[in-house]
């Protein structure tokens, strides 16, 4: 619990402090580093989905201008795999190293790497590398995987209470439905990129990374050197959505090439291969069974999910992660299983598990409500619980009912007529749907440093990242909150593994993890200042440090004497007063910590031209204390846009014959564009601090906005058309009246 009152800076609306740098082009991204004597690497990627390299002909490529070296499985240094553990902070999703052997596990896998003096020469030569393969039959799609193999269960992520199968069979009302979600690709604007150089055995890596500490530790393990000899820098990234959480083969390839050729090497992953070798959200197949009693109370709920993983690693998409605790239900099972496919290894994509999982659950909730002739919102209210029944713990703070109420009121839900197709506006049929959203609240260990500097500014550093979400700004807000300094006198540096150890920017945990460490570091810096001030030659020499107070950048003794802290430091010829802090991952074990919310969506379907658009979204979000209204609302708005993409457009398609992806580019892999944005998007941030979670009461906001959105769209589509689309994306051909 906090021992101070938050000032007005926490919860304020503030523009991003890094915005001007980005506007001016002063924010260097990984591929913006052009080092002296730097060489460029370009990959050669497998054109087959499965098999073995039988020959590589480099004769034409080697003769090309500027070529320095060409790496492949017979010409690559021997490296080590990372043990890949989260606890040791060296996790990756694909542990296989590039060029380990002649095997091909997926299309788009690195099979060679050309290093040349310029990017153009490297790419030109890469097209002249001839690779022969012995091709094996590939598993290219989830459907093929399900035909050919038995899923491997992963009991550790499952949960069972009561007897869901019997309860389902015995209940008076029940439904069973299967939902399918496609492979999705993160598609951040910025390409994955690595710029690597070695300095007397030390590796410096500019990497488009959501986790510099993990990246450093992984590179240290891969090269067999102490982590102190590796520095990974990622001060700015053009977003990642999860694809940049962990190190992927390209970064290892770039660093190894730099060491071998003795020059800095830059490698940018082409857009086509960002669909294959830097992770994806795997396709899922989810079967749900729901049953209620006569009053609409859930009696049974089972959610059994299957996803594809790669041939080299197992990634489980935990589609039931929200199902086990979102509603009250005495008999419940969630289970997860995987099947191998010839894809690159899947990875977390914004709200992993929850995004596809809540599409299924919240669609099924709608189907169940319809089956018992109950308003879908009322049905959810009827099954509300303040207890996490999977842990048998109360939620630390839950305002889902308020989210339902305020969202419904703003949206006008009470005017909804339940009959499908009953709401019209000239050529268009209007559909209204809603869904709940849900995400776990997590927090990690964190170190941080804050310095009060002699020039009257403060400096904060932490080896976490700002992935475009506003972390720089909220860290400055936390420093401002403790010190009273205005934001323009606070400098923040993130994204360098040499700073105090900070969290991966993922799981919506960066805010809850980083801010308490920053705040404690700021308090420790003030304590250091007081110690200096009361020492020999100090402004308050002879006073006791604990009698001084610090407010708005000024030290006071309570007897009328006040001195600006910069003056205190200058008087002593000190550069700064530093504070460091560590805050633990551990949380109060008496509660379950989760965030909640509700989406209300209006769609318009014009059957005369088969045109489907999302026209209105109201989202009420309960994530505890909001630190910055502007950046928080922006996170939810962005998640809504991404949720519309998930609902209507996104689908990485593989040809079942060749095993190759076919729409691996920015034109044919559809994400929503400006013209797809609803005319109205209302984000309501409930803003109830959750002080049981951390002193700021914040639970994080990056992922929750996408959860449930696709279901709300699907439910609205059903309301408009009477068609229940259980396989994403909801494309017009699935709805056409022909």
């Amino acid at each position: 619990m906090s021992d101070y009152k938050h000032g007005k800076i926490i919860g304020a609306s503030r523009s991003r402090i890094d915005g001007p740098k980005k506007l001016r082009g002063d924010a260097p991204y990984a591929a913006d580093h052009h080092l002296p004597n730097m060489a460029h690497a370009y990959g050669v990627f497998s054109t087959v989905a499965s098999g073995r390299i039988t020959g590589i002909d480099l004769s034409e490529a080697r003769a090309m201008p500027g070529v320095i070296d060409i790496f492949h499985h017979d010409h690559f240094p021997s490296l080590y795999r990372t043990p890949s553990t989260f606890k040791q902070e060296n996790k990756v999703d694909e542990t296989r190293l590039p060029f380990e052997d002649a095997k091909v596990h997926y299309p788009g896998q690195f099979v060679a790497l050309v290093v040349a003096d310029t990017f153009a020469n490297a790419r030109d030569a890469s097209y002249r590398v001839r690779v022969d393969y012995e091709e094996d039959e590939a598993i290219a799609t989830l459907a093929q995987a399900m035909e050919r193999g038995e899923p491997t269960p992963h009991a550790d992520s499952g949960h069972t209470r009561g007897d869901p199968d019997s309860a389902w069979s015995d209940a008076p009302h029940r439904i069973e439905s299967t939902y399918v979600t496609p492979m999705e690709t993160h598609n951040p604007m910025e390409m994955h990129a690595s710029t690597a150089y070695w300095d007397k055995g030390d590796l410096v890596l500019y990497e488009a990374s959501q986790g510099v500490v993990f990246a450093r530790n992984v590179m240290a393990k891969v090269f067999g050197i102490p982590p102190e000899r590796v520095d990974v820098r990622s001060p700015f990234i053009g977003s990642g959505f999860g694809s940049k959480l962990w190190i992927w083969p390209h970064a290892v390839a770039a660093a190894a090439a730099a060491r071998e050729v003795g020059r800095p090497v830059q490698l940018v992953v082409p857009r086509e291969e960002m669909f294959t070798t830097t992770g994806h959200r795997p396709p899922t197949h989810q079967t749900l069974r729901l049953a209620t009693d006569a009053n609409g109370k859930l009696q049974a709920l089972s959610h059994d999910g299957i996803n594809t993983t790669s041939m080299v690693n197992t990634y489980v998409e935990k589609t039931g992660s929200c199902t086990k605790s979102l509603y009250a239900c005495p008999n419940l099972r969630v289970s997860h299983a995987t099947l191998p496919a010839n894809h690159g290894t899947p990875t977390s994509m914004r709200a992993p598990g929850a995004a596809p999982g809540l599409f299924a659950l919240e669609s099924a909730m709608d189907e169940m409500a319809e089956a018992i002739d109950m308003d879908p919102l009322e049905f959810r209210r009827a099954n509300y619980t303040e207890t996490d029944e999977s842990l048998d713990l109360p939620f630390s703070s839950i305002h889902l009912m308020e989210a339902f109420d305020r969202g419904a009121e703003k949206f006008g839900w009470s005017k909804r007529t339940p009959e499908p197709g009953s709401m019209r506006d000239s050529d268009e049929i209007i559909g209204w749907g809603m869904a709940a959203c849900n995400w776990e609240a997590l927090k990690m260990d964190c170190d941080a440093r804050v310095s009060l500097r002699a020039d009257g500014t403060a400096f904060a550093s932490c080896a976490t990242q700002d992935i475009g979400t506003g972390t720089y700004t909220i860290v400055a807000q936390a420093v401002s909150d403790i010190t009273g300094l205005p934001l323009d006198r606070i400098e923040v540096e993130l994204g360098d593994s040499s700073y105090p150890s900070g969290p991966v920017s993922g799981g919506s945990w960066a805010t809850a993890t980083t801010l308490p460490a920053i705040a404690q570091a700021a308090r420790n810096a003030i304590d250091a200042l007081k110690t200096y001030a009361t020492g020999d030659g100090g402004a308050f020499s002879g006073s006791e440090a604990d009698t001084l107070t610090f407010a708005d950048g000024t030290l006071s003794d309570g007897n009328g004497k006040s001195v600006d802290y910069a003056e205190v430091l200058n008087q002593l010829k000190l550069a700064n007063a530093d504070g460091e802090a560590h805050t633990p991952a551990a949380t109060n074990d008496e509660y379950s910590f989760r965030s909640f919310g509700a989406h209300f969506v209006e769609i318009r379907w014009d059957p005369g031209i088969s045109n489907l658009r999302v026209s209105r979204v109201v989202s009420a979000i309960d994530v505890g204390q909001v630190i910055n209204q502007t950046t928080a609302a922006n996170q939810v708005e962005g998640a809504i846009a991404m949720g519309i993409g998930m609902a209507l457009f996104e689908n990485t398609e593989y040809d079942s014959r060749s095993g190759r992806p076919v729409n691996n580019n920015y034109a044919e892999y559809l994400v929503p564009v400006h013209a797809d944005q609803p005319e109205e998007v209302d984000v309501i941030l409930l803003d109830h601090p959750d002080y049981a979670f951390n002193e700021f009461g914040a639970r994080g906001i990056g992922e929750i906005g996408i959860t449930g959105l696709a279901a709300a769209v699907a439910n609205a589509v059903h309301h408009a058309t009477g068609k229940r689309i259980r396989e994403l994306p909801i494309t017009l051909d699935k709805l056409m009246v022909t």
Partner: protein
Amino acid sequence: MRNFAYQRADSVDAAVAAHSGQSSSFVAGGTTLLDLVKLDVMQPERIVDVRSLPLYDVERLDDGRLKIGAMVTNTDLAHHPIVTENYRVLSEALLAGASTSLRNKATTGGNVMQRVRCPYFRDGVSACNKREPGSGCAAIGGLNRSVHAVLGTSDQCIASHPSDMCVAMAAIGATVLVSGPNGEREIDFLDFHLLPGDSPDKEHALEADELITHVVLDAPIEGNRSHYLKLRDRASYQFALASSGVVIATEGGTIRDARIALGGVGTKPWRAQRAERSLIGKSAEQASFQQAAELAFEDAKAYEHNAFKIPLGQQAIVRSLTTVTA
């Protein structure tokens, strides 16, 4: 991208002279060519930059036709007052295509030369008779929902023509002016793009080293109203699943003249002349539109994933006709 020789031409004759055979490409906006060169699908050894040729004018001819220089950008053409006033279908088609930044680069001549979006053509590996004659067509039996045709296909190629601009030009009626080693000549717009037939690699009627210098639009039909309707999954920046460009003139509720062209559904910008003829003399009403729409797709052949394009294309026709006759 493989390295290539680059040459900027300052006259049409110099451009034609510099362009020598199979290994050369003209480049204007580069929005198709540079993509395909980067993908290693096209491998020109020489690129002749025609962007600075004096082909920037839009000029009304004495006979009422409109002569458009090949280097006029899509943006400039879409907003040209003569176009917005007399050829609304063209302005709407241009603005429905690509994105603002692409339209600022893309030219009239280049858009006519736009190449297909078939992923099996663009991946550089799959069987594709267009890219590698005789290798087959991976799109048949493959994933062919979005950028594959139902009209004008052959068992050698089913890629749809991607242009919106060309659909409007096909509806309006136009002539392509070209210049080559043997001088200048004219090609009827409807004859410019070729059906794939047995030689999908042969996409247009240009002879070796010929350069498009102008497109001349037919004089506007008196009293016409025109409209371009593009249907697609997302609201912008996607090639048409189906589109319809219509030019209609009515007199007292009766259709006097009708032009219908289709995009996204044909292997070339598709003029639906039988459908047009069915409308002449009919009253402007849903039954006539529906009949025309059905005639337009009379010979359509659907593939594994694109059967929906037939009703979708029909919807595009009916709605665009409804809009211009309302």
